[in-house]
């Protein structure tokens, strides 16, 4: 090895903006892509949107001051996803099609349902296979689905989620609660239905 190469190899990673970005942000590329996939409902556009978001993050990187890197990046990814869908004709992708999501009437009905019916058996949920889980997740309104991804997959705190989704912490709590209730109800329905079909 020549002296130059030795010197290059021994040098600490450069503190150029790019080197810092690669160190801080690139480890979260999977999380970025995963979130985009779930927000965009598995669309092929998730790659393009993630790529655009990473570039945007690089441009804004001077504004990153050592807070949680993943949360910082995912906020940009989420914004990119929503502005991407805004630029296009509104499709089923982002619509709050089922359960009416934030419609107050439906919320009341949902809460009534949560209290009125017994919770599904935990063992029933354990039976749920990958396909059933994926379908149930996909069927959730986007604002519920994204919050579940941030909490269950990325294990972010309510505070971080509130920052990413730009909603108060109280809303994070209630939305997460409703998201889980919806998912549980749908899952138990699907599993019971499938059992019936198999008989």
């Amino acid at each position, binding site marked *: 090895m020549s002296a130059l190469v030795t010197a290059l190899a021994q040098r600490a990673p450069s503190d150029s903006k790019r080197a810092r970005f690669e160190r801080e942000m690139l480890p979260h590329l999977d999380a970025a892509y995963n979130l985009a996939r779930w927000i965009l409902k598995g669309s092929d556009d998730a790659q393009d949107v*993630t790529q655009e978001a990473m*570039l945007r993050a690089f441009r804004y990187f001077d504004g990153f001051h050592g807070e949680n890197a993943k949360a910082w990046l995912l906020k940009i990814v989420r914004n990119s996803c929503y502005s991407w869908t805004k630029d296009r004709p509104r499709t089923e992708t982002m619509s709050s099609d089922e359960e009416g999501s934030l419609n107050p009437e439906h919320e009341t009905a949902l809460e009534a349902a949560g209290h009125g019916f017994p919770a599904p058996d935990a063992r029933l949920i354990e039976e749920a296979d990958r396909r059933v889980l994926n379908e149930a997740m996909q069927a959730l309104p986007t604002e519920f689905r994204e919050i579940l991804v941030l909490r269950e997959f990325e294990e972010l705190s309510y505070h971080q989620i509130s920052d990413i989704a730009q909603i108060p912490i109280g809303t994070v709590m209630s939305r997460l609660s409703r998201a889980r209730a919806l998912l549980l109800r749908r899952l138990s329905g699907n599993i019971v239905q499938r059992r019936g079909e198999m008989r």
Partner: protein
Amino acid sequence: MTCTEALTLLDAYMDGELGVERSLEVERHVETCPSCAPALASRRSLGAALRNKIEYHTAPLALQRAVRNELSRAETSGPGAAAIRHAPPAWTRMAASLILVAGLSSALTYYGTQNGRDAVPDEVFASYVRGVQSGDRLVDVVSTDRHTVKPWLDAKLDFAAPVKDLSSDGFPLFGGRVDYIDDHTAAALVYHSGKHVITLFIWPSDGHASPIAMSARRGDTLARWSDGTMAYWAISDIAAPELMEFSKRFQAADAMPDAPPAKP
């Protein structure tokens, strides 16, 4: 605590987002309540099921590459290049290279227009600078003897890059890496010339052979040619006559065999 209160706080309790006191209250209630206990159990199962069974989409290789490419482009053309001007003194030469790249746009446009592929030179430069800048990215495979680089590259590339042994010409092969240039993979061979490094990029050309064309800017030298099958870009901080010599020697030398000799 009533069931209504407990159910409202159940998620926050499960997620560890409640204070100690509230947590204890929920815990006490759930332990004794026949309707809230299953609610908590099913929520816990749901969390486990999601984490263990559902699809976690990892970034495809194409995306990883595209992001790195975008970063290179942003770094050499955007405000990122300006930030690198503040590099520490030990980086003077590298910083000079980066500023060179940022300032080279006119020369690059010339090459780009001539090539009809504007993106290529930028990417080649970015890749060169990136390689020289970080010791660990300079090569992905080190040439321990003349037979390590060629098979390694052949396995990674969708074309056969000619790897040549120029040690008797004074340019020992140090190693190679694979880069992503102009939407396809390119081989980057790293040769030594004394204490200097020559990076030679190779990728399939558009079929037009062209003689060696030299260019030099602020201490970095480029040589570009094509043999009709492959396009070659050699970049180094050595003087132009020396890089010309390297390029001629490379053209004249025999390529290493495509496949390693079969074992008896």
